[in-house]
């Protein structure tokens, strides 16, 4: 009898499970034509890639921070909506930049306040009340100023000015450039000053609420003011060049605009994540179960905000020009030709494959998979993350500033989710509920692959995507059941049920997930 290698022996259950899944997969493949099989495979890959983008961030956050971020699906959705805004309404995006820069510029003065706060005697009543007064007045000032700030938005009540219409027009290639933000004859200076002041007040409040038991040495040099001055000047310059910038973005090639949209969505997702971690989640590391409630509350808030700003109706995001053409030479014969003629579809063995949905999305998913894998394996941050997943206390004991790493990982995870959202928008459209379904998918994928395992997230997402798409396909063509010869067509509710069943079976066989850590 030949000796079985130790690796195989210790992972026998996992390998057998994988073999069983492969056998099932082969059985599923044999029931359909070659062309159907390839298309279903690609669709499965696409869903798997999007699920992976949500799941990987979720698992990084859960692994390192032990936070079950149930708002992850909502952040995925927010990423999609932000990307859409930059892509379809660049003017709104440009309008928002100025107030944002001014607010943040006021915010960067935290160190100055800390120095001043150290001179005020601790534990006085004034010291306790002042931060709240500062925070509330800052907020009030912000809302007061923003009310008069002319940001070009859309009008939900008027159909001609709703996001749906703008999306449709942009898809047709007609882009109306709305007038940019101006104050008319009034001077914009009070508004600018008010925004900077609001940022300062908020930063003052936040600095003072933090317990300053540890007296940090703060030195005020010109460097302390550099970000403040830089951001404020940037905001003012952006306001000055608002109109040319808007026109430039509107006339820009849609491919580049899409790239910018993706970039902005990821950046704002990461910023949102960092803000969330630093302000809301950080106080709760001692009370883990309450994080669930917090993230649930945030998720509800996020969905309502999206509903308030972008409305309830679903709409689509037009594809960038490179993948949207249908002119001469389309549908293309090969991928190369499709890219040359910028076709939206290509022919493969007589079947039509949508280039963006079924080729570009899985490719980007693969690139992200490799990139994050490299970050985890090759960089110092990745090393700290991997060590932290194994044993957080030990990493802290070694003198690494875990706090900052936590914030970075949270930002990274949310950034990945936002990337997933903005990539999903052109293929599946935007809706208020897109986040929830992907969060559930990601949870199932992680349970299958192993909750804190990065390759597990990839494998689980792949399995979930494949299973769903194959069941949907069989819902169309029907399964001929063996031995009886009856054609069975799975109805739509079976799609979620199938992944859930797969999860339950796998968890009962391998409780830690396929690639998870063994207890």
């Amino acid at each position, binding site marked *: 009898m030949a000796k079985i290698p130790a690796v195989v022996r210790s992972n026998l259950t996992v390998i057998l499970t994988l073999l069983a899944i492969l056998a099932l997969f082969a059985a599923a493949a044999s029931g359909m034509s070659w062309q159907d099989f390839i298309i279903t495979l690609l669709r499965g890959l696409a869903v798997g890639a999007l699920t992976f983008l949500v799941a990987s961030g979720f698992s990084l956050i859960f692994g390192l921070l032990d936070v*079950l971020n149930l708002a992850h699906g909502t952040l995925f959705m927010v990423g999609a909506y932000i990307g859409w805004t930059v892509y379809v309404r660049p003017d709104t995006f440009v309008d928002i930049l100025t107030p944002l820069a001014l607010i943040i510029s006021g915010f960067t003065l935290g160190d100055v306040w800390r120095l001043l706060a150290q001179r005020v005697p601790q534990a006085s009543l004034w010291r306790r009340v002042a931060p709240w007064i500062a925070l509330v007045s800052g907020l009030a000032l912000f809302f007061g100023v923003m009310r008069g700030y002319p940001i070009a938005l859309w009008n939900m009540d008027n159909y001609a000015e709703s996001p749906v219409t703008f999306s449709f027009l942009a898809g047709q290639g007609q882009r109306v450039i709305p007038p940019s933000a101006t104050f008319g004859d009034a001077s914009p200076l009070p508004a600018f000053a008010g925004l900077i002041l609001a940022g300062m007040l908020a930063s003052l409040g936040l600095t003072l609420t933090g317990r300053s038991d540890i007296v940090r040495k703060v030195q005020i040099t010109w460097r302390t003011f550099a970000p403040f001055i830089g951001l404020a000047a940037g905001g003012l310059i952006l306001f000055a060049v608002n109109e040319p910038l808007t026109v430039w973005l509107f006339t820009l090639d849609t491919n580049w605009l899409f790239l910018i949209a993706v970039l902005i969505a990821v950046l704002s997702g990461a910023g949102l994540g960092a803000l969330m971690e630093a302000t*809301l989640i950080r*106080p*709760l590391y001692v*009370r883990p*179960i*309450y994080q*669930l*409630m*917090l993230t*649930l*509350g*945030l*998720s*509800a*808030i996020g*969905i*309502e*905000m999206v509903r*308030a700003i972008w409305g309830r109706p679903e709409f689509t995001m037009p594809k960038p020009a490179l993948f949207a053409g249908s002119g001469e030479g389309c549908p293309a014969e090969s991928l190369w030709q499709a890219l040359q003629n910028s076709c939206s579809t290509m022919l493969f063995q007589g079947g039509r494959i949508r280039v963006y949905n079924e080729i570009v999305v899985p490719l980007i998913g693969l690139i992200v998979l490799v990139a994050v894998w490299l970050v985890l394996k090759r960089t110092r941050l990745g090393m700290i993350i991997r060590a932290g997943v194994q044993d957080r206390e030990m990493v802290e004991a070694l003198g690494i500033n875990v706090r900052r790493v936590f914030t970075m990982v949270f930002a990274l995870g949310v950034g990945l989710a936002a990337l997933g959202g903005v990539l999903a928008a052109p293929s599946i459209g935007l809706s208020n509920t897109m986040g929830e379904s992907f969060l*559930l998918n990601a*949870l*199932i994928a992680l*349970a299958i692959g192993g*909750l804190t395992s990065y390759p597990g997230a990839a494998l689980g997402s792949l399995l979930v995507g494949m299973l769903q798409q194959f069941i949907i396909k069989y819902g169309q063509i029907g399964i001929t059941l063996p031995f009886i010869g009856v054609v069975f067509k799975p*109805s739509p*509710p*079976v799609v*979620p*049920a199938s992944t*859930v*069943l797969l*999860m*339950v079976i796998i*968890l*009962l066989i391998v*409780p*830690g*997930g396929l690639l998870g850590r063994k*207890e």
Partner: protein
Amino acid sequence: MTTSSPSFVQRYRIALLILLALVLLPFVIGLFEGASPFEVWSNQSGISRFIQGLAIEIFILALYALSYDLIFGFTGLLSFGHSMFFAVGAYLTGIALKSFGLNLGQTFGVLMLAAVVQALLFGIVLPRVKGITFALVTLGLSSVFHIVVMSRELGDYTGADVGLQGVVIPDFISPATERLRLYFITLTILVVFYLIYRRFVDSPLGRVCKAIRENEGRAQMLGYNTFLFKLAALILASITAVIAGALHTIYQPIVSPDIAGLGFTVTALLMILIGGVGTLHGALAGAAIFRLLDFGLRRYLGESASFVNGAIYVLIVLFLPYGIVGTWQLKASLSVAHMRQGWRRLLEMVGVNVERRASRE
């Protein structure tokens, strides 16, 4: 000097007062409106009747929250499939009454059987998976049930995605004609279950459950078969939730399939988090606050209610660290200690030797 233990009434005066208030509530509300207690007694429509309905909903939610508190707050099992317990009760009651024409007694028998069976079903996976994996497996089981309920194939029985409706409720507990009676029946059931839970939690059985929550490995080392204790808690929780579900069907004209989804489990989690995890009256208070908050916000804010709701949850988490009841208990015990200390210091200033007085007593 022997100190007599405080009498029953003294010990439970707050609970008894609340109970009395709840018994009198329909009549007092009636008085505000100008309706005499007799009119309220004969179930005439009015504000009192409306308040009774709201209170019945709160009682049902409180029963449901209690059952979740038992398995999550006391035994430490994070289950994401708790809504299935409730929904099984609701749907079985409706189907038994409507499609099979059983009477209430037979329905009750079926319910108890179903409650034990589903707890055993959860029990099958108990020894295999722990922690967050248990949560996911139970989520899976309950989603399968949700999908079965929603499927068109069983639509004749469950009403698919429209919801179960047209259940004929026996006259003597019909919410339409005998609402006051239903109010008192629900209240009685809630009180009875609360007492059972109190007994369970304070019994040796309940103590082992708490030990499992704190450290399962250690409980096992002490020689307890933790599986049996967890199963006992699950069965009791399942029975409670099933009864809550049955009451839900009796009270509501339509049983929406939403009660089988993850959202309804989250409702249970929110209620006990608001009230305070691992405190029985926290679950009751949480249910009341949750329902009233939701009702009030929906009434005055309309669509943006869930935004404010979410904001309130975030605020509660940040500023009431252990739920409303939990934080209050903590603060109360602290302030009592402070008061005693202050009192002692005052006495010492006057010149009374506290230590000697204490020893003399």
